[in-house]
């Protein structure tokens, strides 16, 4: 995960369904971003690496969706479209389209590290939330490992004999940090790498600050809307929407109108 869910959600005593949903969306959006990077990068080995990173992120999404599947709420539902409306993914361009390769790698390194911290901090909450499913997950992990990760053995850091999925998730994130840092270290442009990392860190802080101000955004939005509504309210009874009277629907002149 490199587009982290809002931090404020992880400070509550228990892991709420809403927080789990946010994590699932964050993981899914990271998968989509990596997939897009794989399609655009002009280097087959890197593309292959991006694809495998995307597969990890999809797998992590599944982990959170599995947790969510135990939810009693009929209102909490995973809808991929929320990745756009929830600002996890920009509607007009993916990260890889906006950043240079070095900046992209720096962004991942910084954010994966951040994700690792968040996941470590919520580890106990996950065990508290769903102790039973962690046993069920062991089986899933074995299957997943067998068919999803078989190609990664050579490069995987030893995660010991534990089949706990969350351990795997943490190990994945650590590995992503290590690989992206290694990638950056290979670069001769030390100054640019340092600059890109600083830029990413600063950007991250601003992004998280922005995200954590949702209540203020909502308040300002509501204030403006309600003011507009209040000003227009006296006109409520005279508002009448005209019926379309186009006789010829293929009229060229009518085609120019938005009404």
């Amino acid at each position: 995960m490199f587009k982290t869910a809002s931090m404020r959600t992880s400070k509550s005593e228990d892991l709420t369904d809403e927080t789990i949903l946010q994590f699932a969306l964050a993981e899914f959006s990271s998968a989509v971003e990596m997939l897009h990077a794989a399609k655009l990068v002009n280097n087959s080995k890197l593309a292959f690496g991006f694809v495998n990173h995307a597969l990890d992120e999809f797998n992590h999404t599944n982990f959170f969706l599995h947790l969510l599947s135990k939810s009693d709420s009929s209102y909490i539902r995973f809808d991929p479209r929320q990745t756009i409306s929830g600002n996890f993914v920009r509607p007009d361009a993916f990260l890889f389209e906006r950043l240079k390769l070095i900046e992209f790698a720096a962004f991942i390194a910084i954010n994966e590290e951040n994700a690792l911290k968040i996941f470590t901090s919520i580890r106990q909450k996950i065990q508290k939330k769903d102790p039973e499913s962690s046993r069920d997950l062991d089986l899933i992990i074995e299957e997943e490992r067998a068919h999803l990760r078989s190609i990664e053995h050579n490069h995987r850091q030893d995660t010991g004999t534990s089949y706990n999925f969350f351990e795997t998730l943490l190990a994945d994130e650590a590995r992503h940090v290590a690989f992206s840092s290694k990638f950056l270290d290979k670069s001769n442009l030390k100054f640019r790498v340092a600059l890109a990392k600083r830029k990413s860190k600063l950007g991250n802080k601003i992004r998280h600050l922005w995200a954590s101000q949702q209540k203020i955004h909502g308040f300002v939005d509501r204030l403006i809307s309600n003011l507009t509504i209040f000003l227009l309210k006296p006109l409520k009874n005279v508002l009448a929407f005209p019926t379309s009277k186009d006789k010829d629907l293929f009229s060229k002149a009518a085609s120019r109108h938005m009404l």
Partner: protein
Amino acid sequence: MSFIIGISGYFHDSSVCLLENGELLEFLKEEEFTRIKGTNGFPFRSLNFLVKKYGLNDNNIAQVIFYEKPLRGWAARVTYSFRHIDKSTQLLSHQLKQFWNGPIGFAKDVQKCIKLDEQKIGYCPHHLSHALSATPFVDERLLERQIMHLVLDGVGDDECQSILLTKGTKATRVFSEKYPNSLGLFYSAITDFCGFLVNEGEYKLMALAAYGKPVHVDLMLDEMLNKKGHRIRLNMDWFDFNHSTQRSYGEKFIHTFGEPINIRKIQTSADDDFKRAADLAKSAQVVVESVIKDLIDWGLANHTCDAITVTGGVAHNSLAMQAVCDYASVDVPVTIPPSPGDSGAAIGAAVYGNMLHSKNYITTKKVFFSKQQPEQNQELLNMLFSKKADAQHMGPLIDKALLSGDIICTFFSGKEIGPRALGNRSILCAANQPKTVSELNNKIKKREFFRPLAPIMLEETAQKYFCLLKNGEKNHHWMAMTAVASEAFPEEYNAALHVDKSARLQIIKDKEHVIFQSLRRLAGKIDVLINTSFNVAGDPIVHDIIDCYTNMKRLGLNKLITDTGYYELTDQQQGDIV
């Protein structure tokens, strides 16, 4: 060279259609690029892809048409909300914000991709876009005669249901039901209450109907819809879609039918919640069919026609479309296009542009567009897959795999334009291998147990095993409607049928197609294949070879056939992980 572009977007399923000299050249959905199903917003990526691929510019573009009248749609909804301001403040606030980032800024968004003379940008009435999306698939001899277009939508511009007539270069609107009296939004409210996502889970509700009883039909017709003849007047006490951004059903709904259904509880078991959802689904299905039939009756009683088309989101309901063709009053050909919803309306917008530009309809006999597969990096292809046979020699391997109960993925040049995979981006297996079919449905695609899989077969097989309706047979070429199995249907293929013995079958007629040839060779051993879309549940269908790889890895599949040969996944060393 003259290009015309049709665009749908901002609400759900954004897409772009490109015509070149009156020929349907490309149809792209934004979700294929974003990998986020149902992507809304302006389709920047699809349009930029086409701009680059065809060198689109102001000199070679004749028209760019948006699929609705943006100001009309926005103003209609805002006016309605204002009239009910006591309940609608939340929605109104949302609608007011949309003025700045919604479809009213269409021209500005187009200019971000192509610098274009603004005179070339036009707007087609939403329901006309739907109606015209069917015309390329209507028998071209009928286009000069009177055609009745039934549009059954959620809401578009200010209309919910409408009937339009076209005759050559004339198009008129003869019936229109205004917002909020919407059959589509009624069905979406039931979808929402049963735990499925609106604008996404309606087809699941339709599948669920086969398990229920129509116990709420009278209540729905009389209380919720106030149906009088062909008109409906929604009682808004039952619905919240007119004032809430969170849910479609109202308090009265909960008071009558109990707590909203948790989708997770009905996905795996047939308990009380499942029965509750199934009864609602069945009742809603009967109601939808009843309203459609009365609309058709009204249309036929007041206007003559030589053909009927049905479009709009409700036309995705393949069970209701079977009922339309089966309706005794309908004795003319019925066309339900491959993509009758908002996504396909981009085709209608492009047809509209062509009518303005050259006064001609467009016709097509194809169901696959975008001739070339996206360019692939050969080095990467070799890293992801290992080639087992060239295209000329893959036939025996395909047959062997199908006979031995294997599952095969397909990725051929030319993409399906509708939501159904028609063989070019499909996952296939033999329908007479119940263990494989069950594994495909439950373990691999992880579909809900109540959803059937769709079969694909040759025409002679379909005629032998199904009760096909003459006036709508063509719709089976793109899975637009269901059919009921005949007495002759062999038990060994039961895995291809729903519990009510119906199937949303596809008839494959293209003799050059690899699947057609395989079915020909296997005749007598395998006559029916199971055909499901090549995607992970909830994701868009694959778009390129990287999607093929990631989807196969996630689904645990390893056989792929393409234009260039038969491939299996490799056990390659890992690339640089970043």
